[in-house]
């Protein structure tokens, strides 16, 4: 492939949207209220829409006749480069919102920088995504506050989710070799520089939500290198089911 690093850089961004969109899609029809159901489906839809734009671009690197669906469905598990955070299961609504918010804050920071990328396709996708992702962050942030500062039960559940998912946050700022290569060319974004602002923002909101900031300094990573959690295989079994069972067909 001519530009392997850029291809993998795009996947590193797009796979987060695909996998989180897939996770949210599982919830459709099962939300705590009709309004939240609609909102979660909407976020899923935004993320799948973004995924398509990235993969349409990425497919060009794979050669002729390759499409967004080849990129989405026909990779091995260790070729998906999403962070571990987004593949975590929908344990309960608190987890869904914690996962969302912890990702959204990062996602928005990334989009705001990526819109200035030298790569005009990536810049355009990012520009379009900013409005959507700002809404996602407002929605998830509002729910963290409601659940954190709601009832005793919701506070405990929200705290539990934050405590459990916190260990996945540092991976957001890790750069792979490909990331560094592409960033050096003015196409990629140096995400490591967001780290401080990210934790400041998240910490402030969690405090407002009367939640305790986890003190653990132990973090887990691997997703960006293709090493995923035990959940990922099952997620892909659903995602890839049709394409794997009925190969080479149009749908």
């Amino acid at each position, binding site marked *: 492939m001519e530009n392997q690093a850029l291809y993998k850089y795009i996947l590193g961004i797009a796979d987060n949207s695909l996998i989180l969109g*897939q996770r949210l*899609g*599982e919830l*459709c*029809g*099962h*939300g*705590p*209220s*009709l*309004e*939240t*159901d*609609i909102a979660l*489906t*909407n976020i*899923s*839809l935004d993320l*799948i*829409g973004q*995924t*398509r734009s990235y*993969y349409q671009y990425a497919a060009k690197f794979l050669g002729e006749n390759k499409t*967004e*669906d080849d990129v*989405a*469905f026909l990779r091995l598990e260790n070729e998906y480069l999403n962070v571990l955070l987004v593949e975590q299961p929908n344990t*309960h*609504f608190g987890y869904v919102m914690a996962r969302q918010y912890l990702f959204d804050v990062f996602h928005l920071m990334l989009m705001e920088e990526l819109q200035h990328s030298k790569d005009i396709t990536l810049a355009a996708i990012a520009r379009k995504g900013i409005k959507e992702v700002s809404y996602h962050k407002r929605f998830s942030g509002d729910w963290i*506050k*409601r*659940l954190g*500062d*709601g*009832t005793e*039960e*919701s506070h405990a*559940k929200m705290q539990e989710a934050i405590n459990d998912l916190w260990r996945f946050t540092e991976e957001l700022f890790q750069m792979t070799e490909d990331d560094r290569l592409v960033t050096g060319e003015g196409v990629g974004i140096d995400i490591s520089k967001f780290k401080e602002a990210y934790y400041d923002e998240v910490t402030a909101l969690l405090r407002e939500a009367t939640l305790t900031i986890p003190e653990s300094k132990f973090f887990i990573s691997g997703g960006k290198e293709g090493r995923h959690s035990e959940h990922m295989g099952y997620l892909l079994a*659903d*995602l890839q*089911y*049709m*394409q794997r069972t*009925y190969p080479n*067909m*149009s*749908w």
Partner: protein
Amino acid sequence: MSEKEVKNLEEIFEARIARDEKIEPKDWMPEKYRQTHIRQISQHAHSEIVGMLPEGNWITRAPSLRRKAALLAKVQDEAGHGLYLYSACETLGISRNELYDQLHSGKAKYSSIFNYPTITWADIGAIGWLVDGAAIINQVPLCNTSFGPYARAMVRVCKEESFHQRQGYEIMLTLCNGTPEQKAMAQDALNRWWWPSLMMFGPTDAESVHTAQSMKWKLKRKTNDELRQQFIDQTVPQADILGISIPDPDLKFNKETGHYDFGAIDWDEFWQVVKGHGPCNKERMNARVSAWENGEWVRDAAMAYAEKQSKKKVAQAS
């Protein structure tokens, strides 16, 4: 109010409907009109919400990103329909929680078609094509029904349903133009969804208990049998284009009537499913009840938070 006064109001009311005037929530209406509308609109809202489940079943497994996005959007539309139908129903003086209680306790019905399983991807096509197709035929006349909020909600619902139906047919068309396995999948879906779709129009006119009153209030413009015939006449040529066959050996065009004659509907199956013993009644109800029960702490938290916030505002203001 004296009996005579009520009778007088009723006459004025019926005359307004006869003149095609819309009845609005604050207008006087006979109690039976209110109850009939609560029953029908909530049943419709519940159908939208329960209907999200069989289709939602395929969101994570949709075969392409385009189909995944379209299905997400479709199921989201249905949630939206549910939302404004519940709102229309609430204008009649019943709360959404009461309506949910009726659904969860089994007191309220929803469209029986959603008690059938979606076991292949082709079912998503068949639901769009047949189930949404039947729904449109049932619902288009409701855009002119007498109760204003319902009529206005139906205008939007019908627009979106018609889009869903085209989408469903396009899924079927793609399958039928695909490999033999894909075409077989489409045929199998038609085999399973055809008869339940015909049952969506309800019992035959002879058996239908609500028809006369509903006609008068413009909740119905045509009888169940007329609508069913319209659906069959419209759908048979569409199946011909797909190149798959309708699972009814008695189906044939009648030159004299200009309509298709069709075989006997298995009404025992219809009543079995209506009474709660279809293939997925329990699963659908369990899914709705679990979503509601598992979401209780979330809704409670939102209420508690809102209360705290408004207290804070009051404290700041004083």
